[in-house]
């Protein structure tokens, strides 16, 4: 169960701090999702349910989002206002995609076809964890050091590149199983792999947006 934050606590935070707090929550949620998938591979359905229910719980995020929106609307920030709002909405999209994936995964309890499939899922999960942690770091660098934010995003893109091949290998494996292609297991695993791909792709796109911001604001370097 998540602990709420008081309105007064949030009021004291700056726009930057609210963004960081929001990113931390979304990262935590993504890590819970990854952990939940690991539990699924271990067929620990109780822990799987617990983790994914954590992911779909959004009250704390909504509270921060509302505070952020009201603060940025009134803020005296000049030229960066729209960019900061966009950064926040891109973080929110990570949360939305994760939540969507978690809701779909909770529809059924799948049993994986073999150990290789489980291992490959774990491998792409590790990459997803790396890019989730790195995007959190990159978001925090936007305010303090755009060069570091840019470099961290480059690392995300490298990791994503390697991840994509593994995802297609996994899909190829799935499509070549001797299995009914309308079976729940097939459809579930397909949705799972594609969901992870969608989440990773969004993080990659977000990192490209951060690089765009770095280029835009560091024009005089």
């Amino acid at each position, binding site marked *: 169960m998540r602990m709420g934050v008081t309105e007064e606590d949030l009021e004291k935070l700056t726009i*930057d701090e609210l963004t960081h707090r929001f990113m931390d929550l979304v990262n935590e949620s993504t890590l819970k999702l990854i952990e939940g998938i690991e539990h699924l591979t271990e067929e620990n359905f109780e822990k799987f349910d617990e983790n994914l229910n954590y992911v779909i719980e959004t009250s704390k995020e909504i509270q921060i989002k509302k505070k952020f929106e009201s603060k940025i609307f009134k803020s*005296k*920030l*000049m*030229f*960066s*206002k*729209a*960019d*900061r709002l966009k950064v926040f909405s891109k973080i929110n999209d990570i949360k939305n995609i994760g939540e969507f994936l978690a809701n779909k995964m909770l529809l059924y309890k799948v049993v994986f076809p073999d150990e290789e499939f489980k291992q490959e899922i774990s491998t792409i999960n590790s990459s997803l964890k790396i890019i989730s942690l790195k995007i959190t770091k990159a978001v925090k*660098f*936007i*305010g*303090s*050091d*755009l*060069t570091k934010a840019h470099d961290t995003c480059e690392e995300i893109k490298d990791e994503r590149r390697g991840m994509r091949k593994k995802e297609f290998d996994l899909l190829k494996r799935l499509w070549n199983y001797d299995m009914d292609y309308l079976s729940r297991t097939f459809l579930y695993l397909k949705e799972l792999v594609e969901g992870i791909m969608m989440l990773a792709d969004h993080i990659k796109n977000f990192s490209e947006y951060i690089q765009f*911001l770095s280029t835009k*604001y560091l*024009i*005089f*370097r």
Partner: protein
Amino acid sequence: MDLNLGGILTILLIIMGISLAFSIGANDETLATLIGAGVLKFNFALMAGGFAVGFGMVFLSQGVGKTVGADILGPGVNYSIFMLLAVLISSIAWLIIGSLAGIPLSSTHSTVGSIFGVLIIYSLFQGGVNPANALNYEKLLNVVLSWFLSPFFGLVITYFLFKILIKFFLSKLKGLNQIEKTERRMKWLLLISVLFAEIWVGANSAECVGIFYGLYNSGSISSTNYFVFVIICGIFVFLGIYFAGRFVIRNLASQMTNARPSEGLILQSSSSIILMIATFLALPISHSHVIVFCILGMNMVQDKEIDKKAVGKMAIYWFLTFPIAAILAGLIYFFFILGGLY
């Protein structure tokens, strides 16, 4: 006032001169940077800017007004009401053509070109003056030279000021918070530079004050009336910004919300330096030409691509302004002469 044709036309000229002051305010876009950066509330910014332009026009425009209204004329030559009327009709017509073509033409170039055309026709057909003596060619040459030099120096000053700002401040900024904080401090400097620029925009509004100086110099109005009309012009330039300029300014400002105050600061500082020097030298120059070249200077520093086609088109119109306004005004005055109105 005796309401004969001369009296009626003098009143018409006064109304046109005051309308010109209103239109100077209505077309002044200088405040857009300030509002785009969110430095002042919209109405308050309009009032502050309007007051600055009005102040410049009332207290600092005499030198430039005298150049257009008297010094540019040859020895012993004075404006008649019909000459001034031809000048105003021609410069307004050419400005309308420029607006329809979407080119920011200079009302200063247009006015001085019209004066040239009218005086040549006057010397050829009416005044019995040798065209070589109809104008103070030395003064005219200085004015025309300043039209080439002012944009060039605007570009150079912007280029170097921006380079210095980048080297010592902007290049050292690392994160968005630091950039935002520095730019927030600059907005106060931007406020000062914009208001400073507005003062010199008002002070260099030769086309408006020059008409009244011409009327005063030709004896159509007294010196007291001249100052009263200049004050009225100052009030009308304020009203022009406040009531009509707000639409252009709001439109431009909404496109400038991403602009950094540091860029606006350099642009406005450079253009106001040029306008101030020109005003002290009593040279009427074009603010829009200076600001366009200042923007070019800024783009050069940032290695931004310059739309050479658009600049070329603009330059052609700029070069054409003087001769076309001269021909147009000359023709109008020629028809006045044919009708016995001189």
